[in-house]
């Protein structure tokens, strides 16, 4: 199966992928503005969820847990689709992957939520949140990628 995305590890930008290497010099303003717009949309969606489902420092951060695991499921789906389309539209990965999903998911809130739970005297919650997010995220990205790739293969037959 030809897969131009094959050398890719990093969905944001991977300089081993020729198209990624070229994109910024070809049209820097378009690429950066596209990422900025996607990032703003993703961050607002995250903030909306966090606002709707707040949590105390000693509590489990459900909103951020759901944001991060669903974002990981979606990056798996997105990259499988883009791989199937030989990369798809040149702005699809910058907008949806780097921007929307990168802006939607957050590592810093995850780390600080754990640290704050420890400070607040809830190490059990901190550990559960730490482990559940990592495991949930890895299962989600694997599932998103495998299910999408499987569906696309079946559709192509």
């Amino acid at each position, binding site marked *: 199966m030809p897969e131009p995305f094959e050398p*890719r*590890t*990093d*969905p*944001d*930008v*991977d*300089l081993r992928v020729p198209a990624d290497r070229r994109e*910024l010099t070809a049209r820097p303003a378009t*690429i*950066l503005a596209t*990422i*900025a*717009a*996607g*990032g*703003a949309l*993703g*961050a*607002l969606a*995250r*903030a909306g969820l*966090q606002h709707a489902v707040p949590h105390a420092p000693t509590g489990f951060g459900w909103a951020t847990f759901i944001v*991060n695991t669903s*974002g*990981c499921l*979606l*990056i*798996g789906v997105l*990259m499988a689709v883009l791989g199937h389309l030989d990369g798809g539209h040149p702005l699809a990965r*910058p907008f949806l*992957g*780097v*921007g929307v*999903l*990168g*802006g*939607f*998911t*957050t*590592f*810093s*809130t*995850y*780390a*600080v939520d*754990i*640290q*704050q739970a420890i*400070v607040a005297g809830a190490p059990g919650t901190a550990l559960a949140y*730490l482990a559940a*997010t*990592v495991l949930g*995220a*890895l299962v*989600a*990205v*694997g599932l998103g*990628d495998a299910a999408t790739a499987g569906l696309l293969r079946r559709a192509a037959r």
Partner: protein
Amino acid sequence: MTVLLIALGAAVGAPLRYLTDRAVQSRHHSAFPWGTLLVNVSGSLLLGALAGWPIGPAVSALLSTGFCGALTTYSTFSYETLRLTRGGHRLLALANVLGSVAAGLAAATVGYALARALTG
């Protein structure tokens, strides 16, 4: 107003992640995703400091929710781990998970402690 501040912070944070990742990769050829690790750890350091600093809701929307939230990423981190595993780099995948979580948590703790020490 809050919505605008979050959008503004994220509109800077997300492209900065992309540019940092490119800069790291162009100087450092490695299968290990150092660029993403760098943004995630530095974003956790800054957000930890902001959590220990007496900031108002406007600064929090701009820098914490917007900038730090969009600078750092869980989706990129998890996808890289998946790709490392698929590519046969299981040890690198494991190192990425353990290293990112440990370094991110350490950075958040240091940032918070520094802010607390400085603000008394």
